[in-house]
């Protein structure tokens, strides 16, 4: 039956060959890649996208004004590569940027991308009648004006380090001539948004909800044709996805179970790809009482308790248990892949005796049952954990280690939305958090600095340390790289000594990829960023790679 299959597929492909547009070289392009994300996209229309799968699909269909570079620098515009905008000019007061659009850029229905589209997109993203989840991220943008058909001027309210990033990264343009005619209240739920018209190297074919999303290469794209013919997204749960990968049914699986990674080493069908990541995970301890937002936390406001808990866990052992030999230990409030990372910093050592002594001296004494209490209040708190299997593993490991110290930690396993809500409302005792940092130390200001506590910042812990702020300012204002690094290290050491969190590990994910695929260099934050440049050598193609660009029978 397999051979009959192949013959039919080959026949169809042959028949189609004579009518489709020619490819650049014999077999240089081609192939169908099946991605197996863990859930279906909620939406693939850029202003409504809020989930990971949606973003993955959206990024294949829509180009941004400028794309962030592999170093992920969000400050200024040096690291950005032109996309829809082939160049841009800053006003002298930096309160506006004029983007010159690439005249070759076209929407998938053939119409050119114009400045009107940018202005329209801004309206959709920020109008409360549409209620885009992206709107808060564009708070600093004031308006967009059209200077001529290929020049759009974006106006800002304030001059901020990330203003270029806000526009270039968050505002993904959509075509006005397609969506402009629909009233904004109805646009969000209009079926027209389920078959988006984009401008990037893949175009939309179909979306069977819950089953698959199909994209096909845009052969006349201004950035060049994608090397693949087709991408299909088939959502499924992790266990099934892993099985599908091993049998060749799926070509790419994100977050392959770590314990089973060795299966990939011995598989002839798929292999493991370990990508470094820019994010690190920690157990944050809320120094404020979750019930009355500004009162000190009965347990965590005492630095001795926080340090004791940090010393109670064997971070290396946990790393080996969860990641085997592929893990990366966290050395502070940064990921080890950051240029300013410093592995010489002194973290609280693993010393249970010292931890016990510290807790005793802080007044938390062990009772008859071995559990500690102070003034009648037991040393007991809840840890909010999101569904990441690694965080859950760590939570269980730490729970037991705390127990031997007389500390009771209850696990509150919630979904991502609920975890997000806890962070936004600051109503948690402890929480497994993660931050992504960009290479500049100034990014750390947003996560651990006092500036980050305000609206728009990421400092959900509301951690404030004046000494850290001052040292960080010294770091970011020095022009001497050596001095910058030294100030930064001192700043980080301050945070580490103050132990607002237990720094655990850098996020390391094992992706499963089919062996016939040649991946392009991936970005650490989004592995799908260069999907269009993945390729399948002619000699390794299988049935579904040879279909070509033919649309299926109706």
């Amino acid at each position, binding site marked *: *039956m397999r051979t*009959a*299959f192949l013959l*039919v*597929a080959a026949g*169809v492909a042959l028949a189609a060959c004579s009518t489709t547009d020619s490819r650049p070289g014999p077999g240089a392009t081609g192939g*169908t890649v*099946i991605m197996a994300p863990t*859930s*279906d996209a*909620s*939406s693939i229309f850029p202003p*409504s996208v809020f989930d990971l799968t949606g973003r993955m699909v959206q990024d294949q269909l829509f180009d941004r004004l400028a794309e962030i570079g592999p170093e992920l620098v969000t400050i200024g515009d040096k690291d950005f590569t032109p996309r829809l905008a082939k160049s841009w000019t800053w006003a002298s007061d930096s309160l506006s940027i004029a983007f010159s659009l690439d005249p070759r850029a076209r929407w998938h229905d053939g119409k050119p991308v114009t400045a009107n589209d940018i202005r329209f997109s801004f309206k959709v993203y920020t109008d*409360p*009648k*549409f*209620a885009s*989840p992206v709107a808060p991220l564009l708070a600093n943008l004031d308006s967009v004006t059209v200077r001529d058909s290929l020049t759009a001027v974006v106006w800002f309210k304030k001059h901020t380090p990330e203003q270029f990033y806000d526009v270039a990264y968050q505002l993904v343009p959509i075509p006005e001539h397609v969506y402009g005619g629909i009233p904004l*209240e*109805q646009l*969000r*739920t209009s079926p027209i948004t389920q078959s988006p018209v984009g401008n990037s190297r893949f175009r939309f074919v179909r979306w069977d*909800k*819950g*089953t*698959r999303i*199909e994209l096909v290469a845009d052969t006349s794209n201004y950035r060049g044709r994608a090397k693949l013919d*087709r991408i*299909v997204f*088939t*959502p*499924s*749960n992790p*266990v*099934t*996805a892993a*099985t*599908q990968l*091993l*049998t060749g*049914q799926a070509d790419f699986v994100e977050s392959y179970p770590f314990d089973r990674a060795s299966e990939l080493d011995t598989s002839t069908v798929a292999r493991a790809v370990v990508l470094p990541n820019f994010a690190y995970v920690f157990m944050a301890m809320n120094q404020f009482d979750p019930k009355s937002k500004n009162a000190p936390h009965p347990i965590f406001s005492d630095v001795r308790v926080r340090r004791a808990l940090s010393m109670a866990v064997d971070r290396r052992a946990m790393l080996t248990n969860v990641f085997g030999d592929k893990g990366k230990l966290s050395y502070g409030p940064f990921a080890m892949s950051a240029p300013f990372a410093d592995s010489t910093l002194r973290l609280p050592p693993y010393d249970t005796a010292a931890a016990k002594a510290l807790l005793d001296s802080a007044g938390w004494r062990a009772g008859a049952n071995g559990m500690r209490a102070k003034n009648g209040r037991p040393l007991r708190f809840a840890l909010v954990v999101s569904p990441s299997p690694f965080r859950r593993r760590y939570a269980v490991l730490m729970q037991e280690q705390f127990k031997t110290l007389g500390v009771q930690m209850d696990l509150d396993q919630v*979904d991502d*939305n*609920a975890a997000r809500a806890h962070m936004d409302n600051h109503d948690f005792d402890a929480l497994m958090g993660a931050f992504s940092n960009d290479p500049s130390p100034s990014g750390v200001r947003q996560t651990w600095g006092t500036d980050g506590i305000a609206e728009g910042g990421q400092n959900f812990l509301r951690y404030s340390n004046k000494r850290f702020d001052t040292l960080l300012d010294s770091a970011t204002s020095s022009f001497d790289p050596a001095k910058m690094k030294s100030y930064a290290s001192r700043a980080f050491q301050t945070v580490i000594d103050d132990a607002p969190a237990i720094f655990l590990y850098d996020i390391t994910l094992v992706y499963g990829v089919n062996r016939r695929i040649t991946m392009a260099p991936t970005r650490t934050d989004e592995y799908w960023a260069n999907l269009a440049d993945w390729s399948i050598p002619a000699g390794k193609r299988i*049935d*579904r790679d040879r*279909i070509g660009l*033919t649309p*299926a*029978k109706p």
Partner: protein
Amino acid sequence: MRRYIAARILQSVVVTFIVTTIAFFVVRAAPGDPFSYESRPLPPAVRQQLRAQFGFDKPLPEQFVRYVANVARGNFGYSFGKQESVHDAIAQALPRTLLLAGVALTLAFGLGLVIGVMQAARRGGWFDRVTSGVLLFFYSVPDFWAALVLMVAFSSWWRLLPSGNIVDPVMHDYMPGWMAFIDRARHLILPAASLTLLSMAAVARYQRAAMLEVLPSDFVRAARAKGLSERAVIWRHALRNALAPMTTLLGLMLPVFIGGAVFVERVFAWPGIGSLATDALAGRDYDVVCATVIVGAVVVILGNLAADLLHLAIDPRIRE
């Protein structure tokens, strides 16, 4: 008889109404008042619409009436996770579950019946004992476990069948008609087999007990005395009488099939009602969860009604 049919249909409607009531109040008990839609970031236009339709700022009895009226029209609310109306989500998912459950039901009843009869025919014999043991094992195994083992065995160890999905995500559209049919069948085999295995045990046990009750009865002895072959006695006479409780069994088993489908769909990533329910559980999508309860029950109710009417057609004896 016409009155019986009318009464049965009326009963089905009443039961559906009761199910809707139960579902409404169960979900109503959620903290944060799910039907007010405040707790979830919805597009304001959608929220306005839902407000108008379900009237969440109105008193409880009125809300209930509106809810029932909406459900009767097929409006179950909005799915936050899928960003579409619950009605649309169910319209796509339900046929897939019906296909799966339908195939499994046919197979389970068919096989279970045959096995049960064969067991009763030679009660205590080696076939009876061996199959009883095997069936007992399947009856005691957790649903998702059997499904998992089947999936790993037949798609991972022996690469015979695909794991997950309802059709090949790419090649299906390029296949000629008969090949596309085979593709669908290949994807259906493992999930249907899992669901069948688990329920077949219950059917066989039931049928065996029913046959054992009928076999000693007078008319069977009379049939034997008439000189009919044992086979004719069993398969034609005894069986026909033992079939009567089949409708009761169908009524009892239908919810089991739908329930079992929840697990099987999750293991095989089969996008039916079961997957819809488990996704809604993870995402706290109240409208969807409420709707799956109602729709699941309606399937059972309608199935029962169909079985009763069928039974009526087949067996004239109960037309009293």
